């Protein structure tokens, strides 16, 4: 990305480079805007987590933007069927970098209870798009979803900005 290249110019001392990266990481971690994408029952838990009791806005996670162009994460909440795979791919391509995917619930992780004897369920959304955080549960409790987001924040802090 152009921004990163500009930082690595010969004028900038190395210590400033580290601090700027940390600042950008801090900004990215504290302001995750997931695309509200509820497919099935896990979607209800996701909506419950956005609501007043388990408020996700505390962490800066604003769920309000329905357009993938303005979001940096998708929470795949629910069962992924073969019919919706092209849609997932298109949404993933429409999102601008840096982007993160959270697979919420057993169905998105691996096919869940539909792993056996199912002709239409994709066995885990990671066969379609790369996933960053897996949240097990059927459905995971809101506290589990919050922990998933916190793990994503840890992951964002941990990776270097040049990788993304």
């Amino acid at each position, binding site marked *: 990305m152009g921004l990163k290249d500009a930082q690595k110019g010969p004028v900038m001392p190395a210590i400033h480079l580290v601090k700027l990266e940390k600042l950008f990481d801090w900004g990215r971690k504290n302001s995750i805007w997931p695309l509200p994408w509820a497919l099935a029952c896990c979607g209800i838990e996701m909506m419950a987590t956005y609501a007043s009791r388990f408020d996700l806005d505390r962490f800066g996670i604003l769920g309000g933007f329905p357009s993938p162009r303005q979001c940096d994460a998708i929470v795949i909440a629910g069962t992924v*069927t*073969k*019919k919706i*795979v092209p849609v997932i791919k298109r949404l993933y391509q429409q999102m601008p970098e840096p982007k993160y995917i959270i697979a919420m619930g057993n169905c998105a992780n691996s096919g869940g209870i539909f*792993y*056996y*004897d*199912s*002709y*239409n369920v994709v*066995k885990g959304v990671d066969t379609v798009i790369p996933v960053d955080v897996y949240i097990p549960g059927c459905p995971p409790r809101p506290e589990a979803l919050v922990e998933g987001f916190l793990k994503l924040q840890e992951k964002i802090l941990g990776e270097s900005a040049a990788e993304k």
Partner: protein
Amino acid sequence: MNERAICVRIEDLKLTLEHLHSEGYNYFSFVTAVDYPDHFLLVYGLVNTGKHEITFIETPLSKDKPVAPSSTGIWKGADWHEREVYDLFGITFEGHPDMRRMFLPEEFEGHPLRKDFQSDEVEKKPEDFY
């Protein structure tokens, strides 16, 4: 809810449906199918909301000609139910405006709810191996 069930031949199905509609059966509740070894059985559920009655209609269909008349001319709500039956069983409905798959992707081959449906992608449960 009063219930009754009748069994009709495939040739009399359209007449029966039209007759029931004129009798006041205004709500098309569902249509589904059963796969028996030698025939299909189409099951309709029609509701008379005025009199709180439901009538089930069973129609056997032969396996080499799984075609039935569409009820979309009588009840608009039959549209998606018939698409579902087509998608999962392969029973086509004549006169349906938009006969295509509903839940499965368009390029899917086969009709899953038939008993003879085989697919490599369907993982067998571990118990099935013993």
